[in-house]
């Protein structure tokens, strides 16, 4: 069964084609790693799927409906969760409040202005549970901006988890993290993988992470989909050796 599909998805910025007719289907229970050199269009592809950018052509289908014209908030409500590559938080709000806002959105509480937020103990309890999952419970009252880079990345992931989406989109979740922080996030992704109803999309440069987690790898190069298949096949294929590993040999060792 297909849950998410892009058909000839294309976006141009002036004369530059950042994503070039990418057609791809994603099935529940599958973790797809999206790899490619810098500037290959991976994050742009994510932005098209989660609605931050509108495509110049092509369409996106999700859960049986065409969502190409849907705004970002409505796509989030439909079940597309997104964690951003460049940490994107509410800087002066506390860690707990950052997560609580995501929980609130997931619970459909958008315009309730008649009762104090602290009386919604159900939302607060759920927030605490998620903070414990990402090991941020002890930092709950700190402003997001005061967190270490690694903790901010974890909070970014926590926001997406709080949304309880059907599709998890991780954009380099471990970038810039110290070695001892990485396992927390990888374990979280591995846990999410247990749920066979979810799609996980992962943009990642670290090949060992990709190899250990991914069920499938797709390779973007100059905005085009150049390879798609099982991790071992894709990594071994000549086109990837040339297009990705050949251009950036340092990345494979990372």
């Amino acid at each position, binding site marked *: 069964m297909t849950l998410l599909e892009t058909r000839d998805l294309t976006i141009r910025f002036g004369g530059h084609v950042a994503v070039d007719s990418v057609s791809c289907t994603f099935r529940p229970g599958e973790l797809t790693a999206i790899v490619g050199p810098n500037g290959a269009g991976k994050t742009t592809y994510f932005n098209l799927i*989660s609605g*931050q950018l509108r495509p110049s052509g092509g369409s996106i289908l999700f859960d049986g409906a065409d969502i190409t014209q849907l*705004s*970002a*908030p*409505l796509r*989030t*409500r439909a079940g597309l969760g*997104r964690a*951003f590559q460049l940490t*994107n*938080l*509410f*800087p*002066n*709000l506390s860690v707990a*409040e950052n997560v*609580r*806002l*995501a929980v*609130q*959105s*997931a619970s459909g*509480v*958008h*315009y*309730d*202005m*008649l*009762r*104090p*937020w*602290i*009386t*919604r103990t159900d*939302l607060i309890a759920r927030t605490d549970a998620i903070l414990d999952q990402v090991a941020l419970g002890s930092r709950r009252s700190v402003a997001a901006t005061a967190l270490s880079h690694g903790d901010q990345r974890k909070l970014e992931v926590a*926001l997406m988890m709080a*949304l309880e989406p059907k599709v998890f989109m991780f954009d380099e979740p471990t970038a810039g993290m110290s070695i001892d922080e990485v396992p927390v996030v990888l374990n979280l992704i591995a846990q999410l993988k247990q749920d066979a109803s979810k799609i996980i999309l992962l943009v990642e440069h670290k090949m060992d992470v990709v190899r250990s987690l991914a069920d499938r790898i797709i390779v973007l190069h100059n905005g085009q989909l150049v390879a798609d298949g099982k991790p071992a096949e894709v990594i071994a294929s000549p086109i990837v050796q040339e297009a990705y590993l050949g251009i950036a040999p340092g990345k494979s060792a990372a």
Partner: protein
Amino acid sequence: MILSGDPPRSRVLSILLVVIIAALAVTPLLFPGAKAMNVATKICIFAALVASYDLLLGYTGTVSFAHTMFYGIGSYSIAIALYSMGPNWAAVAVGVAAGLPLAMLLALAIGLFSLRVEAIFFAMITLAVASAFLVLASQLSWLTGGEDGRSFQLPELLRPGTILIPQDWFGFAVNGRVLTYYLIFIACAAMILALLRVVNSPFGRVLQAIRENRFRAEALGFRTVFHLTYANCLAALVAASAGMLNALWLRYAGPDTSLSFAIMLDILLMVVIGGMGTIYGAIVGAVIFILAQNYLQALMGAASNAAADAGLPLLPGLLHPDRWLLWLGLLFIASVYFFPTGVVGRLRNPSRKPA
């Protein structure tokens, strides 16, 4: 505080607020003079007006220049209704029934039209609409009285001549004027409490999220244009209500008392001095600003005379009452410099050094 689950979070602030509210509550009994009553009323009305502006500026981070327009809509709707229908309660009801929906629809239209895009566009649109409204109010003389405004009579019950409780009962007289004052006091307190309730609701928390990072709020599934538009409508309703109370107190509505951009500047200063994004700051800011505006001149006159009597050089000239605006300006610069987060922000985080 009451009903909102958001305490002042500072002992000094709590005491300050209790003192302010108690002082405002007993003003008609202790200082029945016209000047003190006018100042106290202005504080009440501006506390509510500034609080509603804080909902926009402090909570959503939206800069609007149309707040006095909504204040003016409230003032004029009461004034025009009472002027044309005579001093009765039906006219007051018509004024309210016409003014509030008008303010809200206008806020809704401006919001849906311009809050989708960048904040600067909204600021420009509000500026343009407010300017147009000011010109309109001055030009449509047959309706608004033009530059002269509209004076009107109040219903019997609210007139100064109406004695409700004679002086010999408790030692002080309660006349229609005192009743009007308490009407305003209670209405403003209710509006401020309602705003506190709103900013501490799940909706209010989303407003703060939009101020912090609108892009992220959208990515979390909040359709921020609706949140901003609702906040804009709510602020407009409170501003219009404050304008109505102002008209009732002054028995007059004109461009200078309800629409001018000088009032807009006063509101901005009160929000900043009191502390943005706190609501409580509106009360503190209004008290400081309006007291300074009304009593600084007299205070300086006294100080100037004292300095002259003491034979000090230069000081009598510097403190001359005519220089009061200079000192008011210096006072504001100093307060913004030393309390960048406002008085309330400073009281809540006394350790934080000014940036």
